[in-house]
């Protein structure tokens, strides 16, 4: 039963993705990268960051830490090749479509999603039979975890002292 639901969701996911692409192209005659640096994307990342990072050393992330991490995610994306930025824009645009979010069993908005709903979404894409969705999970994983630990403020919690010497 579970397997069947999974496959149905997979097919639905593909159709939704194709539809979303078309919708996106019609709505904006702009490169998809413009969907990255928006308030909606900020809220999406603010929800996903704690779901990916968890509580390093048992400490839940504060709102300040989450907001700073969203800034770093945006900085990371802004330094990627433009075509990669477009792909990320398409992914973020897709996740912001209400029907897609519901298909992913995230019932209310991303901001109001429960930790269980977020974990379910991440886990389903992580092991999804459709390679595109699996690679989207990996993109979110790498982008969020890499950007999060790029900043000095996150190092104490993991016992990383930083470089032993400083040069000027």
């Amino acid at each position: 039963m579970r397997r069947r639901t999974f496959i149905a969701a997979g097919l639905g996911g593909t159709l939704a993705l194709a539809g979303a692409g078309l919708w996106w192209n019609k709505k904006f005659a702009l490169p998809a990268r413009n969907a990255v640096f928006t308030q909606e994307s900020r809220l999406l990342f603010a929800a996903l960051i704690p779901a990916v990072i968890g509580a390093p050393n048992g400490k839940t992330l504060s709102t300040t830490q989450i907001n700073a991490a969203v800034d770093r995610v945006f900085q990371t994306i802004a330094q990627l090749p433009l075509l990669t930025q477009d792909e990320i824009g398409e992914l973020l645009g897709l996740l912001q479509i209400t029907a897609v979010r519901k298909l992913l069993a995230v019932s209310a908005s991303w901001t109001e999603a429960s930790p269980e709903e977020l974990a379910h979404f991440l886990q389903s894409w992580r092991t999804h039979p459709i390679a595109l969705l699996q690679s989207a999970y990996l993109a979110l994983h790498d982008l969020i975890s890499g950007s999060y630990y790029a900043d000095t403020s996150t190092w104490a919690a993991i016992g990383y002292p930083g470089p032993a010497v400083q040069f000027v």
Partner: protein
Amino acid sequence: MSNQPLHLPDPIHEGLARGWKVIDSPKNQADLKCDVVIVGTGAGGGISAELLSKAGLDVILIEEGMLKSSRDFKMREADAYPQLYQESAARKTKDKAINILQGRTVGGSTTINWTSSFRTPTSTLEYWQDNFGLREFTAEAMSPYFLQAEQRLNISPWTPPPNENNDLLRRGAFKLGIPAMAIMRNVRSCWNLGYCGMGCPTNAKQSMLVTTLPFALDKGARLITRSRAERYELKNSAVQALIVQPLDAKGLAPEGKPFRIRAKHYVLAGGAINSPALLMRSGAPDPYKRLGIRTFLHPVVICAALMNQAVEGFAGAPQTIYSDHFLEMDPITGPMGYKLEAPPIHPVLFASTINGFGQLHADLMSNFSKMHALLALMRDGFNPESPGGKVELGKAKQAVLDYPLNDFLWDATRRAFLSMAEIQFAAGAKTVYPVHELAEGYKSWGQAQAAIKALPLKPLLTRVVSAHVMGGCGMANTEKLGVTRPDGQHWQLNNLSVFDGSLFPTSIGANPQLSIYGLTTRLAGNLASRLSNRPAPTLV
């Protein structure tokens, strides 16, 4: 060590002050002329620049990345990856199943590599002799060129004790009776800091940035940075000009007017993936469909382990111990062998590479300083079932590598996970984590063995990475088998030579920098001799 910031000299800034001709992204550049224009400033381009300028030739170098030097190298991943790597260190194969670390800065990958130096293994050279007609590439014939590069770049045994991350490989292997040896490194007065991958802050690493490129610039060579080699203009089996496109401040988008460089001879050293793509954009003749095929990566899988003690894999020279035991078990043409090494462990690289999210990820990160990691670098290209990947052009004519992962490679992956886990348990690991989306932490060798044997090995579930790009413009003694002749010249273009890792007809089976140095020393020396009517220059 002192917490006071220290000041060290920066040879690049000193050179610029002496009047080096470096032009960064010229927005309104008139066309240029020279004897030889070199695309790329990495291992191949750097060696070529020194030898060609030593022969008195007028050289221009084109580099897509920026000129960064020791004063910019702050040992921070957040700066280093976007500034010094292709695609912010997130370059991926077409299906996104392999992440590729490749340099994109002056000095290319030599500026950011981990300094591991090996001569091309004799078994690899023999395979080239037998299968690609490269009869002059014997270990004896190559030896003087490796020696020159070793002397020029101070490639020598690393005598300080390995850091704990590397010593765990040594101790674990020793317990199992597996030979493990010390890796030679291209460093001079190394501080043993462990930040080679972010650019050497003390100029100890003898990369192209601080050796051959300063030599060429002192001889009057011109270096144009943050500018992309767009395409060659071709006519009658010859290159007429190279078209160069300057880039914007971030180095991402074209900005400013493209310009032409006309030269007597053209050297292509953009590295595998980029070099074949430039030839494709130029519409280079390819009558036997060889261009871009047989691109190799040494696909790498990783196994992390939680130790009881501090490992601090971020401190101390990375990759100082290796084992070739699993490369030498079978004939080179048999099941794929793999080389074991211990990579550096830094927060961004580690956090983005280990699998999982939420509490699992947080638990691994919370033990960051006690984490050990091994990697297995798989030797691709020596068996019909290991044809490597193919470079294609994407929708913006950018280089895209299609590298399918097949069962032949998964067989090696499974053996590699088993070997790494066994060594890690022998070294005292508490928990071992093969980097695979369905792998959990395993508490004993028995548990790990059973679980690894059952893991479904598939793209995107198994984390595969690469730091070695090779092939795509392979050499052969017949144009039916290669893009380039045994002297590096393009088979169909009589004034273009490829001098970089894309010449390799297979992977190397070892970290490739010294293979590129040695090969280029030989080929670029001969070209310099031919163009200048002088004896071939040497590096020493």
